[in-house]
C-alpha cells in the first residue's frame, strides 16, 4: 500500500510568541532596573513549544495527526529548577466516502527537576529527572481506540521515537536526561542529548508491557550571521522490542533573535521498523520548533 508520510512541527504559535516577546524585552531591561510591570518569577521562565503535523494516506483514506508539545522550565536556585513537558495528540481520519473520525487527547505530562550548569559561554550542561503523570488514556470504543493508538504512535514515530514516553498511552515513566553543548569557536558548536527512561503499564485493558528506553543524539552545529545549521544523528533503543534500535538522521536550520529562536528541522528514520530500509515504514519528517528564554 502506497503511503505518504509528512511531518511538520511548527514552533510556538506566532500569537503566543508575540504575547511573550514584550515580557522578554522587559526582562532584558530588568537586569539593570527591575521592571515594575513583570514579576521576577515570570522573567525567569523558559518556554519551548512544538506543533507537529503528521499524515499518511492510502487509496481509501487519509490520516492526519497533530502533535503539539509545550514545556516550561523555571530555575530557582543554584542552577536547580523545576519544569514540565506535556505532549498532546489530535488525529483525524478522512475517508473518501464516509464521515471524518476525529480524536484528541493529552499525553502524560513529564514533571521534572532540572539542573543547569553555571553560565559559561563555552560549555553548558543541563540535566533533568522526571516522572510522567499517566494522563493518556485510550477510549473504550473500538473505532476511537485504534485511532488513538495510531495517533500516539505516529506522534512518537514522526520524531524518530525521541522522548517516546511523552506519548505512551496508559503508562507512567521515569526519565533521566542530559543535554551538553560545547562552543568550539565562533562558528562551531557540538551538542549531545541523551536520556533513559523506564515505563510501566497501568492499564488492565491494554496488552502493552512497560518498556525501557535509551536515546542518544550528538549534533554538529555551525553558526554565521545569526543563523545556525546542524546535523543530528539520533539513536533510540526500546527494549524489549524484537528490533530494539531505531536510527534516524536529522538536520536543522535555525535563526536566533534576542529572546527567542526558531529552528526548521528535517528527519528521516533510517532502519526498520520506521525507516526506509528493508520492510520499514519509511517515515520522514520536517518540523519547526521554537524556544523562548529570558
Amino acid at each position, binding site marked *: 500500500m502506497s503511503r505518504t508520510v509528512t*511531518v511538520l512541527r511548527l514552533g510556538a504559535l506566532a500569537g503566543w510568541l508575540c504575547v511573550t516577546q514584550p515580557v522578554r524585552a522587559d526582562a532584558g531591561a530588568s537586569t539593570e532596573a527591575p521592571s515594575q510591570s513583570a514579576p521576577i518569577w515570570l522573567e525567569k521562565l523558559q518556554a519551548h513549544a512544538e506543533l507537529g503535523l503528521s499524515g499518511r494516506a492510502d487509496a481509501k483514506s487519509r490520516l492526519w495527526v497533530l502533535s503539539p508539545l509545550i514545556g516550561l522550565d523555571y530555575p530557582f536556585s543554584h542552577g536547580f529548577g523545576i519544569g514540565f513537558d506535556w505532549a498532546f495528540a489530535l488525529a483525524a481520519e478522512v475517508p473518501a466516502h464516509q464521515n471524518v473520525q476525529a480524536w484528541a487527547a493529552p499525553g502524560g505530562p513529564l514533571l521534572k527537576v532540572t539542573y543547569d550548569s553555571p553560565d559559561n559561554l563555552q560549555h553548558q550542561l543541563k540535566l533533568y529527572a522526571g516522572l510522567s503523570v499517566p494522563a493518556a488514556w485510550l477510549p473504550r470504543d*473500538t473505532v476511537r481506540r485504534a485511532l488513538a493508538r495510531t495517533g500516539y504512535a505516529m506522534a512518537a514515530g514522526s520524531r524518530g*521515537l525521541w522522548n517516546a514516553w511523552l506519548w505512551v498511552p496508559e503508562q507512567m515513566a521515569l526519565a533521566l536526561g542530559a543535554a551538553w553543548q560545547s562552543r568550539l569557536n565562533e562558528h562551531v558548536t557540538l551538542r549531545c542529548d541523551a536520556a533513559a527512561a523506564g515505563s510501566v503499564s497501568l492499564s488492565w*485493558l491494554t496488552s502493552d508491557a512497560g518498556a525501557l528506553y535509551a536515546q542518544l543524539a550528538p549534533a554538529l552545529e555551525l553558526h554565521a550571521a545569526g543563523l545556525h545549521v546542524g546535523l543530528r544523528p539520533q539513536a533510540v533503543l526500546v527494549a524489549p522490542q524484537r528490533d530494539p534500535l531505531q536510527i534516524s538522521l536529522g538536520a536543522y*536550520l535555525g*535563526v536566533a533573535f534576542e529572546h527567542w529562536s526558531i529552528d526548521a528541522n528535517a528527519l528521516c528514520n533510517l532502519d526498520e521498523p520506521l525507516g526506509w530500509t528493508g*520492510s520499514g515504514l519509511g517515515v520522514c519528517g520536517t518540523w519547526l520548533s521554537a524556544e523562548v528564554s529570558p
Partner: protein
Amino acid sequence: MMRHVALALTLGMLAAIGCAGENTLEPCDVRRSDCQQQVFLAVADARGSSWDPWFPLPTMRVVTEEQYCAELLAQAPSGPATPGGPNQPDDLTSALKLLHLLDPNETREEGACHNAVFAAAYYVPARQLVTVIDRGGETDQCGDVRTLAHELVHAAQDRDLHFKTLNRGVDSFDEQQVVDALLEGEGVLYETLIDAKLREQGRCGATPPIDLAQVLGATRDNVVDLTRFPSPFRTATALLGYPLGARYLGYGYEAAGSLGVRRAFEPRPEGDVRLMNEQHSEYDRPLPAWSCATLNAPEGYRASVFASFGGFVAYAFATLVLTPEPAAWDNALASAGDDFVVYSNAAHEVLVEWSLHFRSEQRAEELGRALAESPLGASIEHSLQGDVLQVRASSQPHAFGDRAWASCSE
C-alpha cells in the same frame, strides 16, 4: 535582513514537505525473527496503523500437527470420568451427535483434533502467542507469510481493540459466532491484501492474486462444502466466519479503508445470518420477539445446556436434509433465532429439544418436510407451529413418551 531570509527559508521548508514510503515485504522464512518483523510491519501498513514502540511483537513458535492435536485434546471438554473407562462426552457433544450435527461415531480425539485438520496457525491472546503449524512437506514461503500475516492481524486486534472488550456483552453462541467471524474476517481481508501486493510485485510466482473483489464475492463455497464432512456443526462454526466475515468487513474497506473496517465492528451485526446474507436489506428488518414456553425437564432429568446457535448452525443442520446445498443455504438465510436445550440424567443419558424460528412459515415447512423424508426422520422427531420448527432427539428409545411440544408464539 539575513534573519528574515532565514525565517522565510524556514517556512519554505515547511511548505515543501513530502515523503513517500513503500513497505517492501518479500516472501521469507516465517521461522526467522527478521521475517516475522517484516510481516508485522506489513500488517501495520495494511491496517493503516503505525508501528508503535509500546507493543512488542508477539512470541511465535512452530509446532507439528500432532503436537497441536495433543494440545487441543488436553483442552477438550469432557463429561465425568467413568470408573475404569474413558471420559464420556459432555452433554452438548452428546446432544449434537443425536441431531447428527456431529458425527455420531466421532471419538473425543477426532472431535478435539478437528481444527488441527484445517488450521494453519492460531493466536492465543492470553499468552500473546502465535503458533504456526508445520505440516512438513515443501515450504511455501508466500503461503506461510500469508498465514503469519493473518495471525498477526489478530495480535494487532488484541492490541488495538482488546479481545476482552470485544467479547463484553456476548452472551450467546450466535453472538460469539459474529464476533469470531469479524475477527477472522479481518485476518482474511488483510492477509489477502498483503498477498495480492506480493503477487502484483511478482514475488510469489505467476499465481494470479486474490483481489478485494473476490473477497467481496466470497461465499461459503470458497472454503468449504459442508456436505463433504460428517460433522457439519464443527465445519460450519469453525470455517464459515472466515469468508463471510471478510466479505462483511470488505464492504467497509471499500467505503473507507481501514477506518471502514473498524467501523464495521460497531455496532456489531445482530446474528450471524446478517453475515450470511449478501444483500442485507431484507434481513435488516427487525423481527418481532418470539419465544417458546419453557417446559419442565422430563422426570429424572435436569436441563444442562441452554444455547442459541444462530444461522451458521441452522445452515449446518439444513445441509443434512436439504439438497442441493444452495437450498440449505437459502433455508438458513430465513433463520430468525433458535432455542436449544439439553437435558441429562444421572446416567448421562441425554435428551435434546431445539426450536428453530424462521422468517416465513414456508421455510419452516420446507425444512420439516425434508427432515421427515430423510433417513434422519427416523431418529429425530419434529413438530411445526407456524414459522417455528421444533425438533428433538433422545439417546433412549421412547424417552419423550407423551411429552408435549412447547407452545411458541410471537
